[in-house]
């Protein structure tokens, strides 16, 4: 007699809506074949909205472990669901401004929905199996999305590179999971934790497993020394996808890392903590320093996102309630800034019909005051400038570090931010370079309204997160309690 796995359907309603949405989009695309006129994308937006709606409605519900104990649906999962749905929604709005969406919008939307499903699942995974499957779900979707612009060699190149390197990352992760399985006899997080608690310290299987799992996850968040793919992929991928990766992938991967460290790997903190400290410092330094010399704005933002990952790692190291809350807020704050910044770059690419570099962006801020100002706000947010969500994020992270005796890490982060100000300023200065003439102005291209809406939404979120962050901090705090309790 086979026992049917226990599935609480309502608890996984957000994922179901994403998947149903994806299927619907694909069907519509199949039936309407070329006459889709954005219906697919609109459906995708609706799917994200419904998914996010379910998650919001379920906010505060007691945690559930479901789908044969593969998933934990708790506040943390809900938070990621909401965030990812928001990111997806905004990304689709931005993507509408991309000419290629007229022919392939439905496919784009469907793959994006799949990727988002993977991201929400990874946040709720309760075993390494789920973790791996979810990771691959969104990774493979992203490989496709990166290469989505088949007309662009850069896009194809970035997709291929991401595929090769990402697969190596996944293999490392799963290899590590295998070793942990060997050491503890379980893939379930609680089982691993129990096994590790009993394992003799310094056992090589454990060490191997921990390092490999860590490496696999660090790869996804783009931390040193596994960051190599980030600049190339961010640069080559279609800009809306880059924004989505910078925002949503980071959220999913960081939450997965945090959960893995807080639940299965909590007993071996001594093993991974020094590793993470070194990685965090190196990531902050290298990310910031390398960003300083970039002329391609997307590439510069890629390096800056590496640096941001390093900053997030500080919060991971600090851990506990304060650290986790800071991490979640930081990620949530980062998302609208990243999507918004890349949305502005989408606009500029259209205006300029080419790559966004410090050269091509000259004086563009005067042509498009709103977009220019929005970019300035997003960049200031990245830099951690007061009254932006990014500042509060950094404030919370540094605060948690200072509070729990990691003040020197906060100082490292602060120094990194000084360098950060320098390269963000380079962009701002180019944007408002009076000595240059922008000259390019492609007014009124279709789909731009949706981009502007997306930018406005991001702007509102960034400012609200900086000026009135109370609700956000509360939410982050509630979600973070899951991680803090995992100890």
């Amino acid at each position, binding site marked *: 007699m086979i026992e049917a796995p226990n599935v609480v359907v309502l608890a996984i309603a957000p994922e179901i809506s994403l998947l149903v949405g994806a299927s619907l989009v694909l069907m519509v695309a199949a039936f309407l074949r070329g006459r889709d006129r954005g219906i697919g994308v609109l459906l995708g937006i609706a799917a994200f909205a419904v998914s996010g709606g379910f998650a919001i409605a379920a906010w505060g519900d007691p945690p559930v472990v479901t789908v044969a104990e593969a998933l934990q649906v708790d506040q943390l999962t809900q938070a990621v669901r909401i965030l990812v749905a928001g990111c997806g929604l905004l990304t689709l709005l931005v993507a509408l401004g991309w000419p290629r969406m007229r022919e392939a919008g439905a496919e784009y939307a469907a793959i994006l929905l799949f990727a988002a499903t993977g991201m929400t699942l990874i946040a709720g995974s309760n075993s390494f199996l789920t973790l791996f499957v979810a990771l691959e779900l969104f990774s493979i979707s992203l490989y496709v999305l990166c290469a989505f612009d088949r007309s662009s060699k850069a896009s194809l190149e970035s997709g291929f590179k991401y595929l090769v390197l990402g697969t190596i990352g996944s293999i490392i992760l799963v290899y590590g999971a295998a070793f942990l399985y060997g050491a503890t006899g379980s893939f379930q997080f609680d089982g691993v934790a129990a096994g590790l608690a009993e394992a003799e310290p310094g056992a090589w299987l454990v060490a191997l497993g921990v390092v490999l799992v860590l490496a696999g996850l660090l790869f996804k968040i783009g931390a040193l020394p596994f960051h190599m793919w980030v600049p190339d992929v961010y640069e080559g991928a279609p800009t809306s996808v880059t924004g989505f990766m910078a925002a949503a992938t980071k959220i999913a991967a960081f939450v997965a890392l945090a959960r893995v460290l807080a639940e299965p790997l909590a007993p071996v903190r001594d093993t991974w903590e020094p590793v993470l400290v070194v990685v965090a410092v190196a990531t902050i330094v290298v990310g910031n320093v390398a960003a300083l010399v970039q002329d391609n704005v997307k590439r510069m933002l890629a390096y800056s996102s590496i640096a941001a990952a390093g900053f997030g790692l500080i919060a991971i190291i600090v851990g506990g309630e304060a650290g986790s809350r800071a991490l979640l807020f930081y990620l949530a704050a980062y998302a609208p800034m990243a999507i918004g910044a890349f949305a502005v770059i989408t606009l500029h690419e259209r205006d300029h019909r080419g790559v966004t570099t410090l050269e091509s962006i000259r004086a563009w801020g*005067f042509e498009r*005051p*709103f977009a220019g*100002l929005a970019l*300035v706000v997003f960049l*200031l947010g990245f830099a951690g*400038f*007061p*009254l932006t969500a990014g500042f*509060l994020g950094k*404030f*919370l992270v*540094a*605060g948690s570090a*200072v*509070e729990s005796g990691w*003040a020197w890490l*906060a*100082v490292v982060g*602060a*120094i990194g*931010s*000084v360098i950060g*100000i*320098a390269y963000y*300023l380079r962009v*701002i*200065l180019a944007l*408002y*370079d*009076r000595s240059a003439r922008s000259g390019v102005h492609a007014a009124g291209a279709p789909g731009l309204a949706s981009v502007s809406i997306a930018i406005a939404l991001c702007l509102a979120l960034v400012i609200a997160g900086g000026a*009135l*962050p*109370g609700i956000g*901090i*509360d939410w982050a*705090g509630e979600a973070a309690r899951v991680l803090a309790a995992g100890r």
Partner: protein
Amino acid sequence: MITATTLITVPLIAGIVILIVPFAQRLAGYLALLVALGMVGAVAGFVYRFEPMAGYQFGDDAEWIPQLGIRWSVALDGVGLALAAVTALVVACAIGYGLWARRDRTHATFGLLLITEAFLFVVFAARDLFVFYVGFEGMLIPLLVLLAVWGGDERRKATVQVVAYTAFGTLLMLVAILWLGLTAPDGPDFSMAAAVGRGNDLVFWAFALAFAIKSPLFPFHGWVMPAYRQSSPEVAAVLSGVASKAGGFAFLAVLVPLFPEQSARYAWLFIALGLIGFLWGALLAFRQPDGRGVIAYSSIAQMSFVVLGIFLLNAQGSTGATFQMVNHALVSAALFLLAGWLESQAGSGDFRRLGGLARSRPILATVALVLGMAALAVPGSSVFASEFLILLAAFADAWWLGTIASLGIVLAAMYMLRWISAVLHEREGDLVGQLRPPDLRSGALLAVLPLALALIALSVAPAQLTERVDPSSQMMVAGAFADKEAR
């Protein structure tokens, strides 16, 4: 009811609106001027309603980020009000000058100036460390953009220097603020009141460094020359006139009250630096080749003198320092506007190419003389009154201190006389002969005149200011003074 919050929000919102909404260029300028004048009116109302003995007034205190113990806590005492008042005046004059000079991209210039004003008000009114940081850091970016976009030929380098010095200082201060706020005994509390006396030496130095750079105090003045020389006149006026006062104000209103023990212990160091800077700046001003150089180094000298006055930790020192800041704000703002006017009309600020401008330009001669005489603290002027107070405080502290400091006053006479005669007197410079600059009239005159008139008014009855400031400034140094006495 007009409160400190109104004072902050009105220019902030107005600045953003002017920045974004595509008004006609002139309209944007006049709107900005109107708002700036409105702020002058509002501050004048405060001055009228101010009760010197009643401590902090016109305040607001509301929950902002309760999770972190951060409150929107703003209020003005005598010291803050004095500086807020002079800020309103200087910004209005700077905008007026910009209007006259027909600065291009009016929206951005004046919008950013108003935003700067708002953040300056935040600094002067903050009763919460977080709020204070927001203002302190917040004013930096608009000023940087103004410098970087509308600056002179070497604006890029100047911007980098300003960023390198100031950003570094403020970010370390942020870490210190975090420490103070998060380690409060009854949960996180960022109010200044809760931070009194809790800081250790490290935190003290982090604050002190940030303020020393901003002031600028010797030897942290490396960024001053490039910034003051490359900025457009109205920005230089705001930068040296009021933005630098944020540093001096912070010494008096934040550092000394919050760290009474350390302030008393290390007062000797600040006194020494102040003294050296006072003489240093004066000596260097004496050899500068152009007007901006003289004003810049005299600013360094004056602000060093202010710091000296503050760290004498007695009533005359602190009141004198506040008064001196007000005076210097008026003087240096007016001188920078005048220097800018000269450069625009005569093509250069180089002393070798100017001269003889007094001839048939009676208004220019009169205004320049009044300002020059105020700057060199001719007895009877308001600058004299404030310097006398600081000198009195220094003399009371140690007779030799007062005696050495008095040397700087003689030097001030020397460099200001050099400036006056190099511009107004002696033989006509070649540029004056070629370009035949007109007399100081209309817009430019209206921009400079209020500052000069304010100086004259303060000379007639300086007690009108000191009576309002004195109780507050005494309160600020009371703790440190007691500590010093006990030592």
